[in-house]
């Protein structure tokens, strides 16, 4: 690892990244290295970056809607399913199918999730995907 000084970094952006890194328990060195790595991967492979970013933004609104109500949902509706779209919870349902049906047609983004508190699931993507990133 080496020390690198970078000029002309957007100050606002830097502050945001620093705050987020702190929340995630990462050093700025780790974050910058990850960002560099990701930039190389995306720039080199012609990824659908714009589409991905648009989805990320829509998903963030829907996730925030869930997070705002998470404690009461876990208390009152654990094991049931929530349908979320356009930044609001559309309803709570007994089955995943019912929740799916509650999502309006032509919605750009929505979430159908079982109401539960569990750690993220890790998926091994394997070598054939890793090779694309190298």
């Amino acid at each position: 690892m080496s020390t690198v000084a970078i000029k002309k970094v957007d100050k606002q952006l830097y502050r945001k990244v620093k705050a987020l890194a702190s929340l995630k328990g990462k050093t700025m060195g780790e974050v910058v290295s990850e960002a560099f790595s990701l930039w190389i991967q995306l720039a080199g492979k012609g990824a659908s970056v714009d589409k991905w970013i648009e989805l990320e933004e829509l998903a963030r609104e829907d996730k925030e809607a869930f997070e705002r109500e998470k404690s009461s949902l876990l208390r009152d509706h654990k094991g049931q399913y929530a349908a979320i779209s356009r930044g609001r919870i559309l309803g709570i349902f007994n089955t995943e199918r019912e929740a799916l049906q509650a999502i309006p047609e032509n919605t750009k983004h929505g979430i159908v999730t079982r109401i539960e508190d569990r750690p993220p699931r890790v998926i091994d993507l394997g070598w054939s995907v890793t090779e694309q990133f190298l």
Partner: protein
Amino acid sequence: MKVRAKYSSDEIPEFPELKVVLSDPHSQKFIEIRAKVDTGFSGSLLIGLDDYTNLGFPAHENLVGSIVGRLASGTSVSVRASKGILKLSDAERIPCSVYTIPVLARPLIGRELLNLWRTVLDGQKGALEIET
């Protein structure tokens, strides 16, 4: 029921590939995809972002952050996940998770699905056989 397929010669050496029909339960849209059989992939089906969005999977995704992708190098990458229906043959409709990442050369079918079946890879004949 048995499903047989030939290895793909898109790469050297040839690799096992399965032709499946993937549909979205919400939009009812479907496409045929050729997925590389990859036992190193622990998920079910990984498809490209364009197919994922064209079929309508973003309309009913899993909660963001509930699934994290891990490369063989140990690096974590962002993964989007939704639910789809995979049709292996006219008689087999299998509900499964569908994943996408920003960069993907070809769709993959992984252990989450392969472990449901008996899968035989006959490298000498360049043939794949799945028994459900």
